């Protein structure tokens, strides 16, 4: 099994007022063995009501397919500023996505959620494939997805 590892530096995002302290968070998404091409994934943060806050990672290079990551697309408005520099290759069936991103401390234990939207060619779109509270306690605990994601885990 091949791990797709990448590191993103969010220097620009970190400069936003209020987001002073940040820490590296490792996101690991293990995909199911489904029949089909590589999946597009969007990993992002929402508030408890599902309102979009911030993009953590986008897997898949062709922006024309991003509309299929529908909740994320709606929340982020598909504004290129939201995903510039934090995207990589799509993730094949049965493969694992593993990336380390920088996350502002203010988002942790503040009632926010991490969500993953997923989509693949000739397959279903899965808005909120994964939903998991963003907390120190929740870190390192795998959660299952309802679409292409078999399990998702974040470590900090």
């Amino acid at each position, binding site marked *: 099994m091949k791990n797709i590892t990448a590191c993103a530096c969010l220097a620009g995002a970190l400069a936003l007022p209020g987001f002073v302290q940040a820490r590296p968070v490792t996101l690991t998404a293990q995909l199911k063995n489904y*029949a089909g091409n590589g999946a597009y994934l969007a990993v992002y943060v929402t508030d408890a009501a599902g*309102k979009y806050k911030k993009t953590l990672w986008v897997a898949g290079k062709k922006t024309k397919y991003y509309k299929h990551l529908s909740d994320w697309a709606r929340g982020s408005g598909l504004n290129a500023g939201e995903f510039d520099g934090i995207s990589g290759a799509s993730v094949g069936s049965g493969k694992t996505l593993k990336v380390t991103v920088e996350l502002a401390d203010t988002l942790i234990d503040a009632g926010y959620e991490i969500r993953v939207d997923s989509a693949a060619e000739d397959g279903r779109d899965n808005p909120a494939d994964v939903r998991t509270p963003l907390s120190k306690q929740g870190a390192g605990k795998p959660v299952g997805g309802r679409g292409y994601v078999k399990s998702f885990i974040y470590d900090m």
Partner: protein
Amino acid sequence: MLRQIHSLAGLISALLVMLIGLTGAVLSINPALERLAISVPAGVSVAELAGRVVRHYPGAEQIQRTASGTIIVYYSAGDVSGVDRVDPSSGMAIAPYAPPAYARWFKELHRSLFLDTPGSAAVGITALLMLLVSSSGLFLLLKRVGGWRQLARPLHGNRSQRWHAAVARFAVAGLLLSAVTGSYMSAATFSFISDGSQDEPDIPATTSGGTPLPAARLPALLATSLADLRELSFPLAGDSSAVYTLRIRQGDAYVDQSSGALLAFRAHSNVRESFELIYQLHTGEGLWWLGLILGLSALGAPWLAVTGIAVWWQRQRAKPRIANNSAPASADCVILVGSENNSTWGFARALHDALRQAGQRVHTAPMNQFSSRHNAARQLFILTATYGDGDAPACATHFLTNVAGIAPNQAASYAVLGFGDRQFPTFCQFAQEVDAAMAARGWRRSLELALIDRQSPQEFARWGSQVGALLGHELVLDYAPAHPHTHALQLRERIAYGEEEHDPTVVLRFIAAPLPASAGWLKSRLARHRLPRFEAGDLAGVMAPGSSMPRFYSLASGSGDGVLEICVRKQPGGVCSSYLYHLLPGDRIEAFIQPNPQFRPALGKAPVILIGAGTGIGPLAGFIRNNTGQHPMYLYWGGRHPDSDFLYEPELRNYLADRRLTQLHTAFSRVTNGVHVQTRLMEDADNMRRLIADDGQVLVCGSRAMAASVRQAMDQILAPLKLDVAALREKGRYREDVF
């Protein structure tokens, strides 16, 4: 130039085109298969469908309508999620839906060879090359047959050339469409051109946020017909800010889940609509019949690649390689060559070598190079084929213009030798034009124009002896173009006629020779000791031992008859005919098949008039033997004496009795008041005119002299109908096999 482009692009892309053609053909079946499983109800709105679906699938997430009309529902129920094909009239599940695994596999291979971006690029380049090959091929084909109107007529050339052109004729439209649309789609994949998919409606910033209505009651969905639906995505349950995403044929929009209002509709741009049309034209999705046509055409691609490579290879082998070419200014003899497929170069080389052996200095060049530099030569030989509908071959296109500008050398003389196929109305037309143009310009003709039918080595050798007589020394032109590999045959039966005569006749029936007992186990397993495939009217090439020059005999049987049957008259001094005549049952020979598809009865119920003399009855008897459908067939045949050489007499009586033969008219020349077959035709002129008026077809087989007399007689017979042999020949209704 066109040919070079065609060959080069074809050779480079052959393997990939084969692969992409085959995978494309497999994929083309899908739309038709899907289509078989569908019924789309009319007058149903998206809201009605959504209502029905939600009743059976409370966790429905997405409804899709595929191009073929299948309705698919993506749903979740608890922890389980799935995809079902549903019945649009009830919303009930029909079966779980999964595109077949083989289709996905072939699609990936077809699009990217499993090599991701580099693979897609290779496929895209192949599509472009395919566009180049099929368009240049179309032009070559049109040039070859002589224009659009002639597209359906019989084709020239050897087996590979004919197959290549025949398959191209059938597949070129489909291949062109696939190549154009494929190139476009590849360009869109690599974003060289826009596919319009970026033109998305803006995502609504605010929604009404009220209590969600059931999907079946949303006004925007009520107003949309199912026939226009592409996709409807449901909002995630419990998210009051979420919206429905509605994609229809005309555009994309969002629908408020509580007010049911259409939010932010954005119509598809022209760019997007063109992309979708081209996508459909390429995949056949939703156009299942087009898909099947494209698939059939795609199946032609491997076939075209293989025959194309064979044609190219033959041309390369026949490429001009003239050793010891003297300089034009110092040559005694100049040989000018006009050839499209290089086969005439082989004959030119044989002439070149023979003249050199006779002590001449010889210069050989393509006809287009003819200039006043060649004026020093005493003898000018012009060997030329004719291309397409009487045109000049590629390396002779400027010749007629050039000749007009060159002052004739009064000390020199010229001879023209034409190469062609007598089956076609424009037989050696270019050679005739060249001969006439030289004479008109004031050149002295040393030999009458000579014409060679189907590369006959015998006719070439005869012409060579005339050239020898002209130059005052013997000239042996022993040249036969490479022939296909031979099959071992064993004589099973021999029926002799007129043995007391000077030149008796024999009917020979061969079977496939059994392998010698010494053949190893593997060889006896692998070798096919079956007859090769052939039909009555095709030719068998036989070489007498010690001769490299084949003689051709018309086949009196098809391979389906289980024997290879020929009819041979022992010619005075004939090497091959003596060899065959003296064969005894059990003897073995080697022979190859040369297909002769032009000389066959046409399909259909129209009467067939068979005319022959002597051994010319062979193929005609074969046609009658296979006429089990009892189509009207009339045989006019001329022999010498009914007692000695009434060939096939018992068989013909049987064929008359079981109606495979309608009428038999014989003419014997060596009896009191003897007549030839053309006389018999004249006597039966009324019958002949009636048969021709009934769309009858004439097949003539026999000696050249007999065929000429028959043509004359037929022209007289047909005159009252305002028809002649030339007019019938043009329509493929008058065909000859002469020797």
